[in-house]
C-alpha cells in the first residue's frame, strides 16, 4: 500500500469530549471522546447499531447531543444547526443516499457551492450579469468535480436516472463543491462491487492528498485498514478502542466484539 506520510498532529481540527445522546431510553452514543488531527484519514468502525451514523449526525449538527462537547478548531459547536456548521467547512455524505432527485446531477453538485454564491433573488430574477458569470464558472467547476469523482459520463444526466454507485460518487462531488476542511463519508463503499470499491478507495486517497481531513464510516475492513491513519472502534454506543490499524487489529476487545468470542469480559 502507498502509505501516506502521516504528519505529526499539531492542534486537532476536531475534538469530541464525552459526547452522549439518548433517544428515549436508548443511549445511542455514550461518553465518546476522541481527537482528529488535521489532514488525516480517520475511520470509525463497529458492528451494526454501534452508533457510527449517530455520531456523524451529532457532529454535523443533524442531532443535538444530550451531553458533551464538540470542538472545531478548539471552539465549541455542539447544538449548532447543519447550515452553520457548513459555513465552518464541515461536509458530509449519507449512508442512505440524500440526492435531490428533482434536479440534474450537475445541479446537485452546484448546490454544494451554495454558501460561496450570491443568493439574491432579485438579481437572479433579472439575470444580473455578475450572477450569471459566477454561475457559468460554477458549471465548469461542478463538471470538473464530477470528472474528479469519475462521473464524466453523467455530466448531463438527471439524478433520478443514475445508478446507486454513481449517486454515491455524486454525493462526494457535492460535498467537495463546498470546499470543505472536514469531510465525513458515511459508508461510501456500501453496496458497491469490488471494482467500484477500489475506485472509491482511490478517490478517498485523492481527496485526502488535496488537504481535506476525511472521517470515514465503513464496513469494508480491507479498505479501512489500508486507508486509515487512525481508527475509532464503537460498540453499543461506547468507545471500545482507538489507534492505528495495526493496534486495532491486535486489540483483544475489538476482536471479541467482532468475532463474538464469548465471555471476553471487557464490555460491561
Amino acid at each position, binding site marked *: 500500500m502507498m502509505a501516506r506520510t502521516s504528519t505529526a498532529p499539531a492542534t486537532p481540527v476536531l475534538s469530541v469530549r464525552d459526547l452522549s445522546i439518548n433517544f428515549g431510553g436508548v443511549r445511542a452514543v455514550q461518553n465518546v471522546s476522541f481527537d482528529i488531527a488535521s489532514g488525516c484519514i480517520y475511520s470509525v468502525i463497529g458492528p451494526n447499531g454501534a452508533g457510527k451514523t449517530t455520531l456523524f449526525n451529532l457532529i*454535523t*449538527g*443533524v442531532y443535538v447531543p444530550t451531553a458533551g462537547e464538540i470542538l472545531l478548531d478548539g471552539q465549541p459547536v455542539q447544538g449548532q*444547526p*447543519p*447550515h452553520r456548521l*457548513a*459555513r465552518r467547512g464541515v*461536509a*458530509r455524505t*449519507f449512508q442512505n443516499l*440524500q*440526492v*435531490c*432527485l*428533482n*434536479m*440534474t446531477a*450537475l*445541479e*446537485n453538485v*452546484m*448546490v*454544494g457551492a*451554495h*454558501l460561496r*454564491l*450570491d*443568493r*439574491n*433573488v432579485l*438579481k*437572479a*430574477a*433579472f*439575470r444580473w450579469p455578475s*450572477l450569471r458569470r459566477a*454561475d*457559468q464558472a460554477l*458549471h*465548469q467547476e461542478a*463538471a*470538473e468535480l464530477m*470528472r474528479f469523482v469519475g462521473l*464524466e459520463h*453523467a*455530466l*448531463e*444526466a*438527471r439524478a433520478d*436516472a*443514475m*445508478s446507486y454507485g454513481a449517486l454515491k460518487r455524486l454525493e462526494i462531488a*457535492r*460535498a467537495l*463543491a*463546498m470546499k470543505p476542511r472536514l469531510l465525513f463519508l458515511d459508508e461510501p463503499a456500501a453496496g458497491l462491487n469490488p471494482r467500484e470499491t477500489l475506485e472509491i478507495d482511490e478517490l478517498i486517497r485523492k481527496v485526502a492528498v488535496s488537504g481535506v481531513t476525511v472521517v470515514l464510516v465503513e464496513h469494508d475492513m480491507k479498505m479501512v485498514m489500508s486507508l486509515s491513519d487512525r481508527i475509532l472502534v464503537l460498540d453499543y454506543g461506547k468507545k471500545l478502542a482507538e489507534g492505528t490499524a495495526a493496534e486495532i487489529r491486535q486489540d483483544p476487545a475489538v476482536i471479541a466484539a467482532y468475532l463474538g468470542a464469548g465471555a471476553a469480559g471487557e464490555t460491561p
Partner: protein
Amino acid sequence: MIRPVILRPMALRPATLGLVALAVLVLVLPLVISNSFYLDLVIRIAINAIIVLGLNLLIGFAGQISFGHAGFLGIGAYASAVLPTHFGWPPLLALIAGAAAAAALAAVMAWPIFRLKGHYLAMATLGLGIILNLIFRNEASYTGGPDGMAVPAMELFGLQLSRDRQWYWVIAALLLVSVWASLNIIDSPFGRALRALHGSDVAARVVGVDIARYKMAIFVMSATFASIMGSITAHYVGFVTPNIADFFHSVELVTMVVVGGMASVFGSLLGAVLLTILPQALATFEGWETVAFGAILILCMIFMPRGLLPTLAARLGSLRFAVARLRAGRSAGESDS
C-alpha cells in the same frame, strides 16, 4: 474520453424556445381576436397564469403547499378597492400598500410554522384564507359585504387604463416578465436551494441552506405576488366581491399548479389555460359542471400524477428515445438516461 464541458443546463434551451413562442403568441393574439368576450377570457387566463407561476415556485419547486392564496389575492383586491374609495389613496399606492400588507402577514404567519417539520403551512394558510374571506364578507361598511364594491380605474403615470386592449398589453407584458423571471430564478443559486430543500431537506441543510429562511422567502414572495395580481384583477374587472378570497378559489389555483405540472413553468401556463376555460366549456352541463370538473381532476391525477406538461414531455422523450434506438439498430447495453 473527455467531453467538452456543457455551459448551460439542458433545461435552458427548450425554456428559451418556449419564451419566444409565448412572446409571438402574445403579439399575434390581439390581431386574431376581434370578439371582446374572447379578449376578456385571454386576459383572465393571463392573470391566473401569473398567479399560478408564483404559486408553483412555492408548491412545485419548494414543496410547500398554500391553501390560502386566494386570501392574499383578496388583500390586494380590497386594498385597491377600499383605500382609493374610502381614503382617497392613489391606486398605485393602494396596490403597493396591499402588497406590503400581504408580505407582512405572510411573514408573521410563516415565522413559527417553518420552524416545524411537516405540512403545517397547508393547514395555517387554509385557516388564514377562511378568516380573510369572513372579514371581507362582514366588514360591510368598508367592503360592501357579500355584494362587493366597485373599484376605481387604475391610473398608470397619469393614464387611465380603461379599455380591454390597454389592459391586454399591460397584463401580457407582466406575463412575459413573470415567465422570464421564474425561469431565471429556477436556474439560479436561490432557485437551486429551493429545489434542493424540496428534494432532500437534510442534504440542503448540510450544504449550508438555511431551509426555514428559504421557505419563508418564497412564501412571502408568492403572497406578495398574489396580492399584486389581486389588485390588478380588481382594477381590471372594476368590481370586487368576497368570492375572490374564497376557499374554493384557493383550491382552484392549487389545482392549476398540479394539473399543469408541479415544478414546470410552462405547465403552470397550461394549467391556467385549461382550468380557466374548462368552467366555461362545462357550463353546458348545467349544475353538473362541478362534478365534471372533479372527474377531470381525478382522471388527471390517476393517469398523469406529475401533471400534464411533464407527463407529455416524458412521453415525447421516451418516444424519441425509442425511435433513435430503432434507427441505431441494437444499441449498446447502457440503457439508462
